[in-house]
């Protein structure tokens, strides 16, 4: 079963606080352990929320393009790991090991089962 581990940062906190390089090193080590465990499906780091663009299409088909992720959002998505794991306890373990859980917060979302997929 696939679980998305969303690494959620806070807008008012620095994405990389004091000792940033060491956090980077922690992430590299974590990334390596995910690879070694053979549970990796996909992972990416998203660029800063300041580069985000939101798109909505109104009922009349009009495109509404706005700058930024979401008005007044306190949290932003910084990156993710998509992992193939047996159950939620395993996902909680991997989330707890993720340096993002110490620096910010990691949200686990199960990937919905798609019939026929």
């Amino acid at each position, binding site marked *: 079963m696939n679980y998305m581990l969303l690494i959620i940062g806070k807008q008012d906190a620095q994405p990389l606080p004091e000792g940033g390089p060491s956090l980077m090193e922690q992430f590299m080590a974590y990334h390596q352990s995910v690879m070694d465990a053979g549970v990796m499906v996909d992972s990416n780091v998203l660029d800063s929320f300041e580069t985000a663009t939101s798109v909505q299409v109104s009922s009349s088909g009009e495109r509404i393009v706005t700058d930024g992720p979401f008005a007044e959002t306190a949290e932003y998505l910084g990156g993710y790991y998509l992992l193939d794991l047996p159950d939620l306890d395993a996902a909680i373990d991997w989330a707890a090991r993720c340096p993002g859980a110490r620096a910010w917060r990691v949200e686990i979302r*199960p990937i*919905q089962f798609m019939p026929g997929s």
Partner: protein
Amino acid sequence: MTGARTVDPIEAVFREEHGRLLATLVRQFKDLDLAEDVAADAMEAALTRWPVDGVPTTPLAWLITTARRKAVDRLRRDSAFASRLAILHIEANELAPAPRDPETGDIPDERLRLFFACCHPALSLDAQVALTLRCLGGLSTAEVARAFLVGEITMQQRIVRAKRKIRSARIPFRVPGRQELAVRLPAVLRTLYVIFTEGYAASDGADLVRVDLSEEAIRLARIAHHLLPGEPEVTGALALFLLVDARRAGRVDDSGELVPLEEQDRTRWDADRIAEGRHLTAAALQAPSPGPYAVQAAIAAVHAEADQVATTDWAQIVALYDVLSAMAPSPVVTVNRAVAVAMRDTPEAGLAVLDSLDPTELAALRGYHRLPAARADLLRRMGRNDDAASVYRDALDLVGNDRERRFLLRRLAEVVGVDAMNLGVDGRHL
């Protein structure tokens, strides 16, 4: 009448074995929904077979075997579950008990192990408790709903939501390792507390107490205490159960009717349980930061120390309720505190405490019969008989237990000055 006599023992078996049946099936299938469905199937089968064949000598074994067979049938019909069928075949044929995890083998009770397994922190605390009570504690949805002061439909929805998360997020049904026990303890203790309370003061039905439930809660709290002797809240919960349960023999008269605290013959209280409960309370209170169970145990211990209501240290009880309110605020605590204030000072002072409940708290207590029952009792003691009568009727509208209903009817008869026999079952026939 013959029909009723054949059905009653079967229902008694269901009531007694439902929790254990579900627990066994959940352990085997690792799937709450499937376990509940086939448990219901098995009981339905029992309802047709047992009146004809008689109740089997080991009804639980019969129900488990039947439920397993129903599970195989169900899974066969549904090809999506084919993979689980294979697992089921293996487990159904495996007569040995579930393999003991060396890490957790030290929870020396199957039921307690399952309680810890069900109280998964990925569910909200309320959802953990509700699910555990419903699926493993042998309580009905209505009883669980009453314990949470919510309607049955709301509780049903909460349980469905929790089960949906278990399924969708694949929350495993697994006995946690020793280091995880402390995290799950609050939910497990709350579960035991609700089971104990439902046993000591049944919210529904004909009998005031359901000894099977209160004794089970005490038994499991005792095991938890031996397992985690350094957890003051486990000590506190066990102390509370023992001290409250010690009054059981005094709380019911020979004909099964409720005897209120002020009329109880305290020589009928269980001195051994009181001694043990007081000892444990003292231990729980010595912790650096005693929790709500320890404080409630202390309140029960103050009651147990007095030989009658008049010599009870009500000032101490009010002070302890103040501590409890600060620690774990709840409108139910306010109601209990009001009763204690009335005893310490005057019924008017108690009434003032009840009147301090704000609209949100009153809304939370909407279905709680003990609020109007307490208010009516204060009005009765103030001699405001007409007001008391009207509020006793409100309590009668909400009360679920037959013995408590009869007690409230007797009080109502007292304040309206008639014989209780002349009152209708809801007290509104006057």
